[in-house]
C-alpha cells in the first residue's frame, strides 16, 4: 500500500462521508432491496378510497355516434362514471395548452386506446370489470397509421423546423461523390417498471393533493388546476420517487393525475388510478419513429461537402412534445461531424396513433442514427473503415466547428476520446482479426463498430433552464433538502444531497432528502433533458450558500473574528482558533435569531435560441462519449449476440462515479434494446399489439454484452457547472448505436464488404436475416451485371 503524505491523509480525514466526486450508493438503495421504498401504490390507502379505471376507444379514427354507459354504472361496486361532461374546467391534459389532448374524447376518437370515460368503484377489480361493459357506437373514419400515409396526407402537429448553413444543394451537386438514401427508425416503449399511477386526496375549498408518478410535478399541478377550474395554488403535487421514467412520465402522467383528481373532487373521496400494463402501453406515447431521407455529397477521401436531411416523424394524434423532439433530431443530425453546407428539415406528422412523447434522448438518438448511417454509406462507397470516415469528419477544435444551428463547438474532446477508446478496445487489430475470422466461416459472422456521440445539454426551450431549491437547517443541525428535481432512479436526490453536504462540509447522513412537492418549490421544470443535477444541484448549492453566508457572518460577529477566519471543516466549524461542532454553530445562530432557511435559484447562463431563424446557442455545453461493440450473427436465422462492448464516456468531473457508471451502462443497454429487439407492432386497424413484456422485448440480463468495460473520461467541464460535472442521463443512450453498426458490419461480410447493408432499426433477427438476404441478392445482381 502507498504511504499517504500528511497533506493527503489530512485531506482524506477531512473528506466528508458522501463527498462529491466519490462513489456513493443511491440514497434509497437499502430501501429498494428490502421492499421498504414506498411507491404510490404502496402508500397506505385512505379510508373510503375509490379505485378508478378507464374506458378506451377501440377504433383508431372514428366519430362516436352514441355511448351507452348504463351497464358500467350498474356494475357491482361502481360509485360513479365520469365523461367529458363531468369536467368542471377544460377537457385538456396536453402539456402546452394547445387544447389538442382531451382528457376524454367526446365525439371524435383519434387513436385506438384513447380514453373516453372513467369509472370509480370500491375495488380496482370492480372498476376494471365495469369499464369493459360500455357500449360505444362508432362511425369509423379513414385512419392514417404510418409515416407514409401521413406524408401523403400532409397534416402536421406543429410548425416544422428548418436548419441551414451554407448552400447545401450546390455543395452536394458539386461534390465528387453523392449518395441519396432513406432509412426508417423504429419507436420505443419506455417500459418503466412502475406503470403510470396517481392518487388524489380532496381537501377543503376545492383543494386537492395529488401523488403522481411524474417527472414534472409542476405541469401536473397546472393541468389538474386547468381541468378542475382551480387556481394552481389549490393543487399540490408530490412525488417521492418513480419506478422509472425515461421521459415517459414527463407529460404522460398529466392525464392519470387529472382523472384521479377529477374523481376526488367530484366524490369527495380519495381516488387512485393505476392502469394495467397493457392499458398503460396503449394509452401512453412512445419514442417517435422516423423516416429519414438523406442526400450527401463528399469527396474521394470521404470528407463531407454537403448534407441534406429530412426527418419525418410519426407524432401521433396530438402535438405533446413532438415539436421539441423533432427539433432535437435535427440538432443531432450532425452528431460529431462538421457539415460545410447543410440543410435539414423536420416533418412532425399527424397520425391516428397514440401521441408520441419524450424518451431519453428526445429525438437526438434518431438524429445520431441518421448521421451514422450517412457515415456508413460513405465508408462503404469508398471501401474504407467507417471509423476513418468518422474521424475525418469530426468537428475541429479551432476551425470546422460551427454546427448547423450556428453554435460554435468550443469544448470538443471527441478526437482524444475516440483515440483512447480505439486504443483501449484494440479496435484496429480486432477489426482485422474479425475479417480474417469471417473469411473462414460460412454460418456465423462477426462485426465490430466504434461509434461516437456528442449531445447538446440544455432544454432547447430556454425558459425551462431554471431551477429552485429549498434548504432548512433545524436547531439540531440536521439539514432538510428539497428541490424541483424528481427521482426516477437516476440518483438525482443523492447527487444534490452530496452537493449540499459538501457545501456545509457535513456528512451526507446529516442531509435529509425529502419528496419533491410543488408546495415547497414552485414552477419547476421537468426532470428531463439530462438536466436534473446541473440545474437542481446549482439551485441547492445557492440555497446552502445563502445560509452558509449568514452563518459565517453570524460567527464572525459573535466570536469577533474576520469572516475569512470562519472555515467549515468536516462536521465542525473553525472560528478563529477554536473549533465547534456544526450543530453547535447552528444552535447559536438560531439563538441569535439568524434565519436558517433559504431558497436557492439557478438559471443556465449563455443560452439563447431563435427557432424561426434556426440560429442561436441552444446548448450550454456538449457531453461526449464513444462505444465499441462486437457482435456475432447467425447467418441462417439472423439471431445475434453482443460479445463485447467498450465504452469511454465524458461526465466531466463526475459528481458520483458509481451513479454515473450506472447511468452509462443502463443507457447503453436501453439504447441497444431500442435498436435491436424492441419492436412496436400495430395491426392494420391501428391497434398496438405489442403492449406487454410478453410481446415487447426489452433486453434481458443475458443480452448485455458478454464483456462490458465502461470507463469515465474524467476531465472537468469547461463550463462552470456544478463541480464541473456533466449531465449523464441521455448522452450514453446513443452509445447503443455501436451495436447496430456492429450488426451491419457483420452483415456486410456476406457481400465482402462491398455494399452498405442499410440495416434499419430495430434490427430484430428477422430484419438481420432480411438484410443478409437482400445483400446477397444485391451482390449477386452486381456481379451478374459486371
Amino acid at each position, binding site marked *: 500500500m502507498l504511504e499517504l503524505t500528511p497533506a493527503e491523509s489530512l485531506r482524506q480525514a477531512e473528506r466528508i462521508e458522501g463527498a462529491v466526486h466519490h462513489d456513493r*450508493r*443511491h440514497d*434509497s*438503495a*437499502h430501501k429498494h*432491496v*428490502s*421492499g421498504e*421504498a414506498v*411507491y404510490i*401504490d404502496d402508500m397506505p390507502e385512505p379510508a373510503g378510497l375509490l379505485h378508478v379505471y378507464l374506458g378506451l376507444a377501440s377504433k383508431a379514427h372514428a366519430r362516436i355516434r352514441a355511448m351507452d354507459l348504463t351497464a358500467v354504472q350498474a356494475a357491482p361496486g361502481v360509485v360513479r362514471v365520469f365523461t367529458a361532461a363531468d369536467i368542471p374546467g377544460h377537457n385538456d391534459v396536453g402539456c402546452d395548452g394547445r387544447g389538442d389532448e382531451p382528457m376524454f374524447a367526446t365525439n371524435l376518437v383519434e387513436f385506438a386506446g384513447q380514453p373516453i370515460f372513467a369509472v370509480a368503484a370500491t375495488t380496482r*377489480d370492480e372498476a376494471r370489470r365495469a369499464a369493459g361493459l360500455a357500449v360505444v357506437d362508432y362511425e369509423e373514419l379513414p385512419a392514417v397509421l404510418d409515416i407514409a400515409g401521413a406524408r401523403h396526407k400532409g397534416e402536421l402537429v406543429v410548425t416544422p423546423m428548418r436548419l441551414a448553413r451554407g448552400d447545401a444543394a450546390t455543395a452536394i451537386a458539386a461534390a465528387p461523390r453523392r449518395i441519396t438514401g432513406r432509412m426508417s427508425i423504429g419507436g420505443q416503449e*419506455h*417500459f418503466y*417498471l*412502475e*406503470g403510470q399511477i396517481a392518487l388524489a386526496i380532496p381537501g377543503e375549498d376545492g383543494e386537492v393533493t395529488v401523488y403522481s408518478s411524474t417527472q414534472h410535478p409542476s405541469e401536473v399541478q397546472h393541468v389538474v388546476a386547468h381541468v378542475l377550474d382551480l387556481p394552481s395554488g389549490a393543487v399540490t403535487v408530490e412525488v417521492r420517487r*418513480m*419506478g*422509472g421514467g*425515461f421521459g415517459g412520465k414527463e407529460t404522460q402522467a398529466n392525464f392519470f393525475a387529472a382523472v384521479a383528481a377529477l374523481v376526488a373532487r367530484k366524490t369527495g373521496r380519495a381516488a387512485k388510478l393505476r392502469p*394495467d*400494463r*397493457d392499458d398503460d402501453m396503449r394509452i401512453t406515447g412512445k419514442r417517435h419513429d422516423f423516416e429519414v431521407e438523406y442526400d450527401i455529397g463528399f469527396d474521394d477521401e470521404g470528407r463531407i461537402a454537403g448534407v441534406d436531411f429530412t426527418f419525418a416523424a410519426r407524432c401521433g394524434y396530438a402535438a405533446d412534445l413532438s415539436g421539441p423532439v423533432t427539433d432535437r433530431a435535427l440538432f443531432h443530425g450532425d452528431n460529431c461531424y462538421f457539415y460545410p453546407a447543410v440543410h435539414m428539415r423536420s416533418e412532425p406528422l399527424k397520425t391516428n396513433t397514440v401521441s408520441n412523447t419524450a424518451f431519453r434522448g428526445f429525438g437526438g438518438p434518431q438524429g445520431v442514427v441518421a448521421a451514422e448511417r450517412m457515415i456508413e454509406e460513405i465508408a462503404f462507397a469508398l471501401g474504407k473503415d467507417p471509423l476513418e470516415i468518422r474521424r475525418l469528419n469530426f468537428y475541429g477544435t479551432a476551425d470546422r466547428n460551427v454546427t448547423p444551428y450556428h453554435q460554435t463547438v468550443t469544448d470538443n474532446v471527441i478526437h482524444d476520446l475516440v483515440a483512447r477508446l480505439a486504443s483501449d478496445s484494440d479496435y484496429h487489430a480486432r477489426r482485422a482479426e474479425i475479417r480474417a475470422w469471417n473469411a473462414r*466461416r*460460412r*454460418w*456465423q459472422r462477426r462485426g465490430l463498430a466504434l461509434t461516437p456521440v456528442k449531445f447538446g445539454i440544455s432544454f432547447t426551450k430556454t425558459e425551462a433552464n431554471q431551477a429552485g431549491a429549498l434548504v432548512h437547517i433545524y436547531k439540531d443541525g440536521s439539514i432538510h433538502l428539497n428541490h424541483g428535481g424528481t427521482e*426516477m*432512479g437516476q440518483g438525482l436526490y443523492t447527487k444534490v444531497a452530496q452537493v449540499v453536504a459538501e457545501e456545509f462540509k457535513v456528512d451526507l447522513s446529516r442531509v435529509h432528502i425529502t419528496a419533491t412537492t410543488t408546495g415547497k418549490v414552485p414552477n419547476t421544470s421537468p426532470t428531463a433533458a439530462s438536466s436534473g443535477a446541473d440545474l437542481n444541484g446549482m439551485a441547492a448549492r445557492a440555497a446552502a450558500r445563502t445560509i452558509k453566508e449568514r452563518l459565517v457572518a453570524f460567527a464572525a460577529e459573535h466570536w469577533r473574528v474576520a469572516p475569512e477566519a470562519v472555515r467549515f471543516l468536516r462536521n465542525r466549524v473553525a472560528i478563529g482558533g477554536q473549533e465547534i461542532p456544526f450543530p453547535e454553530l447552528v444552535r447559536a445562530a438560531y439563538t441569535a435569531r439568524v434565519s436558517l432557511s433559504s431558497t436557492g435559484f439557478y438559471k443556465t447562463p449563455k443560452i439563447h435560441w431563435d427557432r424561426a431563424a434556426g440560429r442561436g446557442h441552444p446548448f450550454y455545453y456538449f457531453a461526449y462519449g464513444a462505444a465499441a461493440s462486437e457482435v456475432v450473427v*447467425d447467418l*441462417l*436465422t*439472423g*439471431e445475434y*449476440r453482443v460479445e463485447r462492448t467498450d465504452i469511454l464516456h465524458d461526465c466531466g468531473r463526475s459528481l458520483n462515479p458509481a451513479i454515473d*457508471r*450506472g447511468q452509462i*451502462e*443502463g443507457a447503453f*443497454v436501453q439504447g441497444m434494446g431500442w435498436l435491436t429487439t424492441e*419492436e412496436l*407492432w400495430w395491426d392494420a386497424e391501428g391497434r398496438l*399489439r405489442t403492449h*406487454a*413484456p*410478453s410481446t415487447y*422485448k*426489452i*433486453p*434481458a*440480463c*443475458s*443480452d*448485455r454484452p458478454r464483456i*462490458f468495460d*465502461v470507463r469515465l473520461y474524467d476531465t472537468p467541464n469547461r463550463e462552470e457547472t456544478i463541480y464541473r460535472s456533466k449531465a449523464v442521463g441521455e448522452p450514453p443512450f446513443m452509445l447503443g448505436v455501436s451495436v447496430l453498426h456492429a450488426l451491419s458490419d457483420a452483415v456486410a461480410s456476406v457481400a465482402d464488404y462491398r455494399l452498405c447493408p442499410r440495416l434499419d432499426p430495430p434490427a*430484430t433477427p*428477422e430484419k438481420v436475416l432480411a438484410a443478409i*438476404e437482400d445483400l446477397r441478392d444485391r451482390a449477386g445482381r452486381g456481379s451478374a451485371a459486371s
Partner: protein
Amino acid sequence: MPGPMRDHVRFLLGDELREIRDVDPTMTVLDWLRTVERRVGTKEGCAEGDCGACTVVVGRLDGGRLRHEAVNACIRFLPTLDGCQLLTVEHLKAEDGRLHPVQQALVDRHGSQCGFCTPGFVMSLFALYQNEERPTPERIDDALAGNLCRCTGYAPIAAAAERMYELGAPADDRFSVRRNEVARRLAALADEATVAVGRDGRRFFAPASADALAALCLEHPDACIVAGATDVGLWVTKHQRVLPTVIYTGRVRDLRTIVDTGEALSIGAAVTYADAAAPLARLYPDVGELVRRIGAEQVRNMGTVGGNIANGSPIGDGPPALIAAGARLVLRRGDERRTLPLEDFFIAYGRQDRRPGEFVERIIVPKPNPADRFRAYKISKRFDQDISAVCGAFRLRVENGRVADVRLAYGGMAGTPKRASEAEKALLGQPWTEASVHAAMAALARDFTPLTDWRASAGYRQRVAANLLMKLYVETTEPSAETRLVGDRSLAHA
C-alpha cells in the same frame, strides 16, 4: 368420490401458519399480498409473469427436502400455496435490521436505480443463493432471465450475484439453518385430503392423488384444470375471466413423478419444467437447452410439461420437441386410460382430443436410439423469456448415408404444433446431403402457411423454418462449424 375433503388452505407465510377458508379460487398471490395483507414490497410490473417484479420464493417439500423456488406471484393462485412456505422480500432483513447478504450485495454493487424491479431481483437471487453454491456467470444470467430491469443494464445485478457469496456462505444463512425445521412443519401440513375452498359459489379443488383428480374431473367435467397457471393466470389477470371451478394438479403426488420404464421416461403431467429439465436433457441434450429457454426460472418452476401440452397452444415449445422425440400421451377419464401419439392430440387451433372429464395424466418420452441425432431450435426476438416465432425440433437417423428415419416438428408455423410431413417425405430414403436438405426446405412450403404477427412475418417464419433444416444438416455433418450463439455450444455436435 374424490375422498376426504379439507375446507381450508394452509401454508406458512414466513414462519406464520395461515389457514384460509373463504378465498376467491383465482385470487393471485400478488393481489393477496398487496391488497389483503398490505405487504407491498412485492410489486406488480406486468401481471403476466414476464417481468419478475412480483417474484416471491415458495418453499416446498421435494422428496422430504425443502426446496426454494422463485415464482411469479402475479399469476400464481393463492390456494395453490397449500402445503408450502411463502417468502417475500420483507422476510429477508434480519430482526436487528441487518440486510441479508443478497440485499447487501445489491447495495454494494449499485444494483438498484429506480428500485421497482429490485424486490423481484432480490427474491430471484435469494432462491439462487439458497439452491446453488457456486453458480457460473451463465447460471446467474439464467437465474435472472425472468427479471426485467430497465435502469441498470444488469451488469451491477449480475455482479451482486457474485458478491452475495462473499458476504456469507449459504450454509450459514439463517434460512438454511432452519431448513429442517421448516421441512418438518410443511410435512405436518401434507395430507391426503382434497383441498376444497371457494367463494360466491366458485370452487377450487386441489386433490392429492390421481384417483381423486380423476373423480373430481368426472364430477366437474367443465372445470378448468390448472397446473402451473402460467397460461391460465393470464386469462384471469389480463382478460378477467371468471372460472367457476378450478381443479389444481400441483398437489397430485403421482402426477409429479418421473418414472424410468427402461425404454422410456414416463413424466407425470404435473411435473414442472424445472423438474423435467435434467431428466429430459440426459436423454436429449438439446431438449435441455430448449427447456432452459422456456419462459424463465419463475415460469419453469410453475409451468408443467403436461400443461404446456394440454392447453393446446400452437407456440408452446414443449410439444414440438416431444413430438419429434416420438412422445405419447396418456389420457385418463375415471379409471379409463388411452394412449395416443402426441401429435394426434392437437386437432386444430384451440381444439384438442380431450373429452369431458378427461385429463392428461402422463407423457411417455421414448429413449433415443443411439443412432438418432436430435436437435431443437428456438427462434425468438430475444433469447431468454420469449415466446417462439418458430420452434423446430428434429429427430434424424442416417444409415449408410441415407435418411432412415426422420421426424420434423414445428411450433409457430400452424394453428397447432405440427409435423412437416412433406419435408419428412422429401428426406426419407434420400442421401443425407445438402441437395436433399434443399429439397426438404422447399417442401416445407407445402407443409405450412404461417401467419404474420408481432413475433414474426410469415416470410421470416417460412424462411427460418427451412434454414433450421440446414442448421441440422451442418451440425450433423460439419463438426467444426460454429452454429450456436447461446447455451452449451458443445450441443451443436453432440
